[in-house]
């Protein structure tokens, strides 16, 4: 049975501490902020595809903090070159999840090109990510997520999922200034470190 995205994210949330920055794209972001309420959630990527680039900026800016990126297959396809950029920059502290439901869900539930055929783990491996994992069942994800989060980065995690429960899709919140102000205030207490 294919795992539900929200079930996967609930499992992940059990391994994310209160001081961890999580940057998330669109549908994953709406699921995530319902599951883990924290000012350190960053959901304002602005333009589709930019989540992985924000994540790289966070990872370079806080080299001593593990940065979690929750991308989608549609978002990644809009910035596929970021795989190569991230691999080249080689941040050891970045964990890049891609929840692949084969849909441009945020834009309307139409298939992404390559649905069911594209090997995102293979793309990440070929781009040069240090550690690459793939999951299509929740028990395997639950069993391995602890070690996945400790792997040497950049880490890529390809999860084949289907949509779970419906969560509020508050685009006004996502693009409004309040959530970014709250994030900016929350990250001031995080030391920048030296990598």
């Amino acid at each position, binding site marked *: 049975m294919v795992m539900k995205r929200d079930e996967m994210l609930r499992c992940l949330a059990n391994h994310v501490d209160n001081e961890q920055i999580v*940057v998330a794209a669109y549908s994953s972001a709406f699921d995530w902020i319902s599951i883990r309420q924290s000012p350190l959630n960053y959901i*304002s*990527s*602005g*333009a589709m*595809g*930019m*989540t*992985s*680039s*924000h*994540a*790289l*900026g*966070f*990872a*370079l*800016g*806080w080299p001593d903090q593990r940065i979690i990126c929750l991308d989608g297959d549609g978002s990644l396809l809009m*910035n596929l*070159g*970021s795989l*190569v*950029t991230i691999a*080249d*920059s080689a941040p050891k502290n970045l964990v890049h999840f891609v929840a692949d439901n084969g849909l441009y869900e945020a834009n309307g539930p139409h298939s992404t090109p390559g649905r069911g055929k594209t090997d995102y783990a293979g793309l990440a491996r070929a781009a040069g990510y240090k550690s690459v994992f793939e999951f299509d069942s929740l028990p395997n994800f639950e069993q391995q997520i602890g070690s996945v989060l400790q792997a040497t980065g950049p880490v890529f995690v390809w999860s084949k999922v289907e949509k779970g429960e419906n969560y509020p899709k508050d685009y006004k919140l996502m*693009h409004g*200034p309040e959530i*970014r102000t709250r*994030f*900016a205030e929350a*990250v001031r207490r*995080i030391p*920048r470190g030296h990598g």
Partner: protein
Amino acid sequence: MSEEELSGEKILNAIREAGVSHILSVPDRTTEKGILRRVAADHSFRHVRVSKEDETIGISAGLSYSGTRSLCLFQYTGLLDSLNAVRAIAMEYSMPICMMVGLLGKKAGVPPKESDNYGIRIVEPILEAMEMKYVLIESNHDVKKIVPAIEEAYKNSTPVTFLIGRSPI
């Protein structure tokens, strides 16, 4: 060096003086020799080579939250290709995105809006339509505008674009 010339070294000194530590780039023939080659050889900057120009907008935004200043360096074609990211992140989110954009094909001394190159001619009107602050850097005299513009961008959390109007040497 005459005031009609443009020094890449002076530009980099200004960028450094403004506290920029990260250069995010796609090569551009206008700036690659005078600026980018120096960046690649100068380990005082962290040089991030990106696959496509719009990535720099997201990376720069992410960096800014940690107080890390960066400069996005690419050609005007990259700016045109990145307009949606610039629209959303730089303008609507009002992030301190600093871009240095080479105007490949612009003739020195000819204002961009009077260029016989369509791509060059439309750059300033597009930035004006987007309500983006921009500064034309065409001679060493203009280089002094770089530090205050970057300082203002980070102080007020607003973007700025430097248009490089001739190849720095």
